[in-house]
C-alpha cells in the first residue's frame, strides 16, 4: 500500500487556491506588508505565525476583503478578488473576539449567513442542524451567546463561519481566549473539522505550538515579510534563519566563524573552547560569520567525558523540572549557557545531576543547524 502524502506545494502542476502576488499594504507612512508573494493550496491548513505587528492580521483582513492591497494582487481560485467586497467573497472569517451577535440565539447566529443567501427555509434548517451536530451544540441551540461558556462560543463562531461552506476559512487567533487545556483539545477538534469539511483553513496565530499542531504549512512572518514557508517539521529542524530558529521552540544559538571540513563545517566560536562540527549544505566561504543553532532536546548530558565530537565542559547552574522533561542550563567556562533536555522516563525522584555538578554536554554533527544569517 502506497501512502499519498498531502503536499501540493511540491507539485509544480498543482494550482494554488490563493495567490498573493507582490502584495504591499501601507497604512499612511507605515508599511504593514512589503512586496509579499505566497501561494496557498486547496485543503491546506495554513498558519501565519509571527509576533504582534508582523502583518499577519493584515494579510488575513486582505483575504476577507476588509483591507485592499496598496500594490499587487490577490487571487482566489485564479480570479483577482481585489474589487470584490467582503459580502460577495466565498471566504468566511472567524473573528478573534468571535463577534457573535448578542441579540440572536446560537441557532440564529449560525443561520445568519444562510438567510442572507435567501435559501429555502427547510434547507437552512437542515444546514444549521448539521452545523450544530458538527460542533456538538445541539443542546444549546436556543441559548443566547452570553448564556454559554467561552469554549462553546468559540464553537458557535466556527459553525457560523463554516455554515456557508466557504472555499476558504480564515481564523484569527481562534483559540486565544481559551485556557491551555481547552485550547489543546480544540486544536485537534479544528483539525478534525478541517479534514471532514475539506475546507482550506488559514489561521493567524502568535502561538507557535498551536501553529505546529494544526498546520500543514507554516509561514513565519516578521515586519511584513515572510521569513520561511514550510511544513512544521522543516521549520523546526531546518530553520532558514536565526530569527526562525529562535522564534520556534527552545534553542541555543552560538555565533562563530565557519571553516569547511569535508562535508561539514567546523565552527570556531570562542577562545579556549573546542571548535564545533556541523553538517550543512550551505555554501560558506572560509572564515565567514555564521550561527549555530542547537535544540536542547538534541543535547546529551554526561557525568563523564564522552569520546565524541562536539563535547563541551560546564557546570549545571539551573534545572527546570517540567514533569515529563527536565531542562538543564549548563554554563561553560567562558560564560556561555547551553541548554540540554532529558526525558524523565523513570519515576525515580532522584536526579542524575544537580546544581553545581561538573558535566559534559555533546551532540552529533547532524543535530546542530548552521545558519548564515
Amino acid at each position: 500500500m502506497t501512502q499519498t502524502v498531502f503536499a501540493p506545494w511540491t507539485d509544480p502542476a498543482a494550482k494554488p487556491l490563493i495567490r498573493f502576488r507582490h502584495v504591499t499594504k501601507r497604512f499612511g507612512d507605515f508599511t504593514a506588508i512589503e512586496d509579499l508573494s505566497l501561494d496557498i493550496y486547496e485543503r491546506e491548513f495554513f498558519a501565519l505565525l509571527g509576533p504582534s505587528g508582523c502583518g499577519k492580521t493584515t494579510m488575513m483582513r486582505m483575504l476577507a476583503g476588509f483591507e485592499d492591497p496598496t500594490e499587487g494582487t490577490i487571487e482566489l481560485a485564479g480570479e483577482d478578488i481585489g474589487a470584490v467586497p467582503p459580502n460577495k467573497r466565498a471566504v468566511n472569517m472567524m473573528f478573534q473576539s468571535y463577534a457573535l451577535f448578542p441579540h440572536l440565539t446560537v441557532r440564529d447566529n449560525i443561520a445568519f449567513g444562510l438567510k442572507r443567501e435567501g435559501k429555502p427555509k427547510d434547507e437552512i434548517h437542515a444546514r444549521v442542524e448539521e452545523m450544530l451536530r458538527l460542533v456538538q451544540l445541539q443542546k444549546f441551540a436556543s441559548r443566547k451567546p452570553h448564556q454559554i461558556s467561552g469554549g462553546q462560543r468559540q464553537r458557535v463562531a466556527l459553525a457560523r463561519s463554516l455554515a456557508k461552506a466557504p472555499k476558504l476559512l480564515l481564523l484569527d487567533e481562534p483559540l486565544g481566549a481559551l485556557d491551555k487545556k481547552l485550547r489543546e483539545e480544540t486544536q485537534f477538534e479544528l483539525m478534525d473539522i478541517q479534514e471532514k469539511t475539506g475546507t482550506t483553513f488559514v489561521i493567524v496565530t502568535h502561538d507557535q505550538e498551536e501553529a505546529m499542531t494544526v498546520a500543514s504549512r507554516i509561514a513565519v512572518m516578521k515586519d511584513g515579510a515572510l521569513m520561511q514557508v514550510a511544513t512544521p517539521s522543516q521549520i523546526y529542524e531546518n530553520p532558514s534563519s536565526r530569527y526562525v530558529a529562535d522564534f520556534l521552540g527552545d534553542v541555543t544559538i552560538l555565533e562563530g566563524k565557519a571553516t569547511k571540513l569535508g562535508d561539514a563545517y567546523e565552527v570556531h566560536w570562542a577562545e579556549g573552547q573546542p571548535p564545533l562540527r556541523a553538517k550543512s549544505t550551505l555554501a560558506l566561504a572560509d572564515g565567514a560569520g555564521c550561527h549555530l543553532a542547537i535544540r536542547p532536546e538534541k543535547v546529551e548530558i554526561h557525568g563523564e567525558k564522552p569520546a565524541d565530537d562536539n563535547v563541551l565542559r560546564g557546570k549545571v547552574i539551573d534545572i527546570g523540572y517540567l514533569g515529563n522533561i527536565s531542562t538543564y542550563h549548563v554554563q561553560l567556562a567562558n560564560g556561555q549557557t547551553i541548554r540540554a533536555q532529558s526525558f524523565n522516563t523513570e519515576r525515580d525522584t532522584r536526579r542524575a545531576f544537580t546544581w553545581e555538578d561538573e558535566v559534559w554536554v555533546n551532540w552529533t554533527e547532524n543535530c546542530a543547524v548552521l545558519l548564515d544569517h
Partner: protein
Amino acid sequence: MRRFVLIAVPFLWLLALFLIPFGIVLKISLSDVALARPPYVPQFSWDEGIRAFLSQLDFENFAFIGAGAIVVTVVAIALLAAVAFPVYGLVFRRFFGGGLKALSIRSLIAAVVSVVAGILAVVIVFAVISFFFPSVVSLLEVDDYLYFQAYLSSLKIAAISTALTLLVGYPMAYGMARSPNSWRPTLMMLVILPFWTSFLIRVYAWRGILSQEGYLNQVLLWLGVIGEPLTILNTNTAVYIGVVYTYLPFMILPIYAALEKLDVSLIEAAEDLGCSRSSAFWLVTIPLSRPGIVAGCFLVFIPTLGEFVIPSLLGGSGTLMIGKVLWEEFFNNRDWPVASAVAIILLLILIVPIVLFQRNQQRQAEAGG
C-alpha cells in the same frame, strides 16, 4: 436598623418631594372652587372634624374634565400597543421566516395585520366590559371637550416630536460613535453645551429665528427659495422645532452610549456573512442600539407630554397642550380644583410610559450583566 436607615433616606425624599405634594394636589382636585384665599373649599379645621371634611370632597372636577373618557382612551391606546407589538413579531416570524427586510412590503403587511388585531382586541374588551357593567359607559360622558382634546393633542404632539427627535438624533449619535476617539469628547461637549444656558432664553431665541421677520425667513427670502415669508412661529411646526431642539441631547446620549459599546467586528462579521452595508445596519446596528433608542424616546416623550414653556412661547392659539391648559386654569381662571384634577390625570397617563421605561432600563441592565 442599618438597612432601615439606608432605605429611609430615599423614602423620606420621595415623601417630602413627591407624595406630600401629590396628596395636597389630590385633595385640591377633590375640592370646590370658591372666592376665597386659598380659592377652594373645604379647608380642614379641627372644630368640624375629619369626617365632615371628607364628606365635602367629591369627584365633580374629574367628571367635568372628562377624566373617565381620557383614562379609557389611554388604556385603549396602551392595550392596542400591547397587542399590536407582539402580533407584529409573531406575524413576521411565522410567515416571513424571520428574515428582517426593513421597510419592505412584508413589514407593511405585518404592521397592518398587527394594528387591525390591536383594534379588534380593544373593541372586544370594551364590548365585554360594557355588556357586564353598563354603568361604565356613563364614564365616557364628557362635559367639556377642551380637556379631552388637550390630552389627545399633547399625546399627538409628544409622539410626533419624539419621532422627529429620533430621526435627527440617531444619525448624530451614530456619527459621534463612529468618529475618531480623539474627537468624541469634543463632540459630546458640543451636544451638552446648550445646557449651560437657560432653557427659557434658548427657547425664546427661537422666536427671533422663526418669526415672520426672523432670520430663517430672511435667509430663505435672500436665497430666493420662497417668495413671501413663511408663517412658522405660533404654529405646531414651531412647537415641533422647539421640542426637537430642546430634547435632542436626551435622545442622543442614550443612543450614543449604546452605539459606542457596539463592537465594530460585529458589523464586519455581518458583512463577512453576506450583508451589504445597509442590511448590516438594519440587522445588527439597529437591534443592538434598541435599548438606547427606547430610553431616548421615553426621555423625550415623558417631559414633552406635560411641556408648558415651548407651546406657550412658540405655539399659537391653535396649539392645544395639556401643560398650557393647566397653567391657564391655575392663573387665568383661578380654578385650582379643576387645574389639580388636570394635573392628577396627567400624572396617571405618565405612569404608563414611566413604567415601560423602567422595564426597559432593567432589561438592559440584566442583559449587560
